[in-house]
């Protein structure tokens, strides 16, 4: 029966190396998109909490729209619209059109989607920080940025970590959607390997195991980070 493990060998007659390459691409995408999403999320959360009325409304529209439309549709829209917009911009300032790398476009897409979710997670976490702590930082004469870096961000971290780790899991799984736009990450590579060897079951199971390993490994790391961030806080069950 079809479980012939030789085709998973790392060197070229086997497809193992290709799969690992796809996994690496997936992880790059997930990490890049996640970080971009975090940056958007910090900005968005502060905008939603302290911004003016127009900024608040705009951010509300952004998070609502992004969370209501399927990721697959958003990825298609942003993938084409994003690359198109950059090329139009280059055309406008007189530069020749460029071929945007799939990785950059993919990171942008995942980042925009993740940004909406992390905005909400971080907003909740910042609101959970006792306001007296932030006020104390301001009373010490710290600038808003110093207060953010020294007090607000570290103090909100324990509240944000469960939500943020969830988002990381979603990011690793959302990268699979970029297979639909033809980016060679783990799922698409698996499909190609399976299609050319006809060993569908073997390859899809192997890819599943790789994704599962990423999840389990991430869980361990997140456990460490959470314990570090919660040090000195009362234990809650």
């Amino acid at each position, binding site marked *: 029966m079809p479980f012939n493990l030789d085709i998973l060998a790392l060197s070229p007659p086997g497809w193992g190396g290709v799969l690992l390459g796809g996994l690496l691409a997936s992880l790059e995408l997930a990490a890049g998109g996640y970080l971009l999403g975090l940056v958007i999320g910090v900005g968005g959360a502060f905008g939603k909490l302290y911004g003016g009325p127009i900024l608040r409304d705009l951010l509300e529209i952004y998070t609502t729209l992004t969370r209501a439309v399927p990721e697959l549709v958003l990825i298609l829209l942003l993938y084409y619209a994003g690359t198109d917009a950059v090329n139009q911009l280059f055309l406008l300032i007189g530069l020749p059109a460029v071929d945007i790398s799939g990785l950059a476009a993919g990171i942008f897409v995942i980042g925009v989607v993740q940004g909406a979710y992390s905005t909400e997670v971080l907003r909740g976490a910042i609101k959970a920080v006792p306001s007296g702590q932030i006020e104390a930082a301001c009373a010490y004469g710290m600038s808003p940025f110093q207060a953010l870096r020294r007090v607000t961000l570290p103090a909100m971290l324990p509240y944000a970590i469960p939500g943020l780790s969830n988002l990381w899991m979603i990011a690793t799984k959302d990268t*699979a959607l970029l297979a639909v736009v033809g980016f060679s990450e783990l799922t698409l590579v698996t499909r190609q390997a399976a299609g050319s060897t006809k060993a*569908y079951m073997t390859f899809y199971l192997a890819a*599943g195991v790789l994704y599962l390993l990423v999840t389990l490994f991430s869980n361990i790391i997140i456990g460490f980070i959470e314990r570090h961030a919660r040090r000195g806080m009362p234990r809650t069950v």
Partner: protein
Amino acid sequence: MSEETSILPIYIPPKARSLLEPHRLFLAAVFLMIVLCAAWLLRWDWLPKYGPRLVYGVWQTLVMLFWTSVIGFLLALPIGLVQVTGPRPLAWLAKGFCTIIRGTPLLLQLWLLYYGLGSLFAQYPEIRSSFLWPYLRQAWPYGFTALMLSFAAYEGEVMRGAFAGVPRGELEAARAFGMSRWTVFRRIWLPRAIHRALPTLAGETVLQLKSTPLVATITVVDVYAVISKVRQDTFLTYEPLLLLALIYLCLTGALVGGFHLLERRIPTRGA
């Protein structure tokens, strides 16, 4: 430590606002302009031709969403329950199932079932000659199974928490009234758990709606597949996708509103 020293109002909770504030009117005008520009400048002449097919696609999406959620939820009940009270091996089995389904992308599960299992089935003459084969040759059973299992795993995790969160005292009181274990489950434990899980159920169902377009990648016809067909036929990039986003937006809004109504009908004491 006097209370009056806090001068800096760091976080001002937003006041309840109405839609008719000046800046909102301005924003609404801007968005109306954008929508009008989109309607005026983009091509929409394909819409009448594909209208009936779009309606059919939306219907298929909704049917898929409804049945996968209902059956997935029924599967989630035992999955959640055995993790709280079941025998060890069953609990481990349920936990493993949840971990595997939640740890891998749905797209991969879908392709595993359709391409992997589908090609495996085709190799056995016994299956090919069985009465199930006319169904197994189509794509939708695989899409349906993948979506159903995914919902069962995510909701099973929610139900585990909900079952575990029902106060012990209520169950003990029911036992003290002389109810059998099954009666306690049917009258107290299950209704209370579902009640606790209801708020998250709305979120899970929206997530499920957002997963349904994935089945179009294995040739099941839903609204996403219809839009893909439009894109292939007309060579338009944005117009069909924008319409698709709008359709999903409306569906999500209707779903959230529906669950809101449902939650309001169920009496709660306090908060």
